[in-house]
């Protein structure tokens, strides 16, 4: 079984930024992602207690380094200032590389 190197971008942000992020993804032609609600703490305070729309969401995207860097740059540019948000990259290996282009 051959494995291919791709990247995983993980974005954790307040739920209200979700829509903007998904729009950025689709602008870059990325259709595959996984998301789930999380709680958390960061520079913008404890989240995930109380109103539903104060929760955080984590969005994970497996794709090529190039595409994900573009995505991250756009997120950083437009969303970092207004929303509670962090993101990080990691290396992952997949079987069907064609699924993640």
């Amino acid at each position, binding site marked *: 079984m051959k494995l291919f190197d791709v990247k995983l971008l993980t974005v954790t942000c307040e739920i*209200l930024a979700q*829509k903007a992020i998904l729009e950025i993804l689709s602008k870059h032609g990325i259709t595959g992602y996984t998301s789930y609600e999380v709680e958390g703490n960061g520079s913008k305070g404890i989240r995930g*207690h109380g*109103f*539903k729309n*104060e929760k955080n969401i984590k969005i994970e995207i497996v794709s090529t380094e190039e595409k994900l860097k573009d995505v991250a740059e756009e997120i950083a540019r*437009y969303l970092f200032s207004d929303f509670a948000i962090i993101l990080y990259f990691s290396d992952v290996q997949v079987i069907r590389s064609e699924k993640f282009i």
Partner: protein
Amino acid sequence: MEVKSNLLIQMDILGLIQANILTPVVLFFLLGLVAARIKSDLKMPDAISEFLPIYLLAAIGLHGGLEMRNTGFDSMLIPMLTAIGLSLVFTLNHYQILRRLGKFNIFDSYALASTYGAVGAVTFSVGLSFLKNQDVASEGYLTAVLAVLEPVSFILAIFLTNLAVSKQIKSKKKSLSSDLGNNEKILGMVDQSKTNLSGVLRESITGKAIIVLLGSIIIGYAIGDKGFESISIVFDGLFTGAIAIFLLEMGIIAGQRLDDIKKVGVFLVIFSILIPTFNGIIGVFVATALGLSLGGAVMFGLLMASASFIAAPAVLRHAIPQAKPSLYITSALGVTFPYNIIILLPIMFSVSSIVHNVDGSINLFNYFGIDL
């Protein structure tokens, strides 16, 4: 004679406030507040706190629709337009106060102004259950007013914010036109701001609160009392109990927010009490002048007095992301909501009783003439 009657009214209000505190709805709110303050692990499951507002909106919508079917709604137009007009005027007024006296920045000022110009469906529910307790009816079409009023002041605030942002950006553009990247970003922001308004309008109108409310009004109207029978235990019998449970949750959230009140500042706390009082009492008078019933005038006043703390965060975070949510959530939920349901509601009820001349001795005009 004068003095005595004034005294009586005062006692009446105090008595009503006290009686109001001793209702399950208010007491469960206080229980939630206490639980949060002593850092209890008490919390409602998310699913329940998401479901209850939907249920409450459906219940008040059905109730409104049934009432409208029974009593008609020809007379609805003028109160509705008046409510919209007042709401807009109030929003502008809040903005001036916040910006000039409160020295808040544009974004926070507009966000707060619209939070207090908007309406609170939970507050409305509590009002209905308060009236039910007093065995006083209210005009069913006020539920429709609630639904229409929801997006009004948000739209105004967002429109004005966009205007302000556009102006700012234009002047900035003139002064600095060198940094390309930044310029691009600014242009992006203008674009974003421009799309925001229609987006927000769309989202407000398709927002779950309005959909459920309008939908249930129509359903209530369509099915009538006979059709309602089969679901009346769920949507009528359980109503007050469900509010009590929901207010337990609201109390918990308000309690968790109380620490933020320090950050909010004295000015905003005073604002959060005086403005609802002012708006609410005006609302009662205006509604009475328009011919609404005793209970209807109270509900109309409550619409004016209430601040939005469920819709506001969702709408404003998208529409004015530069504003600090801690300001408008904390003041609306932590100060205004408890004040409204515990103190202002009985006050408005007393005022409405007086101007409606319930005890037969004072009527609107000689009340104005003598006491004001």
